[in-house]
């Protein structure tokens, strides 16, 4: 990956993967408690993406199905990024039953489920990474990107001030039920420089 090599060495990439591994385990543990189910942990994918590839990266993550998504920015120690949690819309029925959500599955009900899951997964994951690097991340307010959208309509790409970013993708599934969600953490190039210094310190 030539694009990746410019911002990350292989050792750094490996380290991010391991840090994520630990953080997503902590997040999965919380989700498992919330849902009373076993969360299947994948190997996280660490890559460097270009702004124009963001949509493609998302597409690869969820396929063509319609999705709902929440975004949340975070910032600390000169490092900022944004987390995005995407749910395949087919997941909501199972999610509702695991969360013992009563009543009809309206758009509002789905939003509640989306927000509750996002609070747990995003918070635990970024704090998990932060703890290992001794960074305290402050979370911004979540923003609903869209419900039941085509992915290509979800993220408007273009001039939002970055070219390359470190992307951490985690694909969570729940055992025995049809729940499928993708957590994406994005750090822009400026932040990655600072982040790399912290990582190098660990690698020493």
């Amino acid at each position, binding site marked *: 990956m030539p694009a990746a090599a410019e911002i990350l060495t292989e050792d750094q990439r490996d*380290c991010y993967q391991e840090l994520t591994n630990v953080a997503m385990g902590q997040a999965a543990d919380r989700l498992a408690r919330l849902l009373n189910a076993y969360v299947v*942990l994948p190997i996280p994918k660490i890559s460097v993406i270009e702004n124009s590839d963001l949509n493609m990266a998302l597409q690869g993550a969820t396929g063509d199905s319609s999705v709902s998504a929440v975004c949340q920015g975070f910032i600390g120690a000169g490092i900022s990024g944004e987390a995005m949690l995407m749910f395949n819309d087919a997941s909501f029925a199972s999610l509702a039953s695991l969360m013992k959500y009563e009543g009809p599955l309206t758009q509002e009900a789905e939003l509640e489920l989306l927000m509750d899951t996002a609070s747990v997964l995003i918070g635990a994951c970024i704090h998990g990474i932060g703890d290992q690097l001794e960074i305290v991340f402050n979370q911004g307010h979540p923003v609903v990107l869209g419900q039941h959208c085509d992915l290509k309509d979800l993220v408007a790409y273009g001039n939002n001030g970055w070219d390359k970013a470190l992307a951490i993708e985690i694909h969570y599934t729940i055992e025995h039920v049809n729940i499928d969600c993708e957590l994406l953490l994005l750090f822009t190039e400026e932040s990655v420089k600072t982040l790399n210094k912290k990582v190098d310190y660990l690698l020493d």
Partner: protein
Amino acid sequence: MSLNVLICDDSSFARKQMARALPKEWEVTVHFAGDGLEGVEAIRDGKGDVVFLDLTMPNMDGYGVLETIRRDDLPAMVIVVSGDIQPDAQERVKNLGAMAFIKKPIDAEKARAVLTEYGIMTGV
């Protein structure tokens, strides 16, 4: 003859972290494996009297390694070191014959506590 310790993890950073966490005064030979398949091979070669095993790995994951050890009756004491801290995961690996479970991130204190508790490291 010193004890053979195998550290099986797909991340080189995690392998290094684990090796660093081992008690300094514990006289062992440390071997490394980058995934489950390599791990099983190393155990067959007698390099894994004690195995520190990760769960999420490509090719063969930690569960696969535990199943192989049990099926082929390989002589290895396995300590699972994983970021998957769900109670269910700990239960599963214990049922598959793992001796102990350590939550990642690993540090010297946790490693020493487990090694002492299960009597793996004696006389220190």
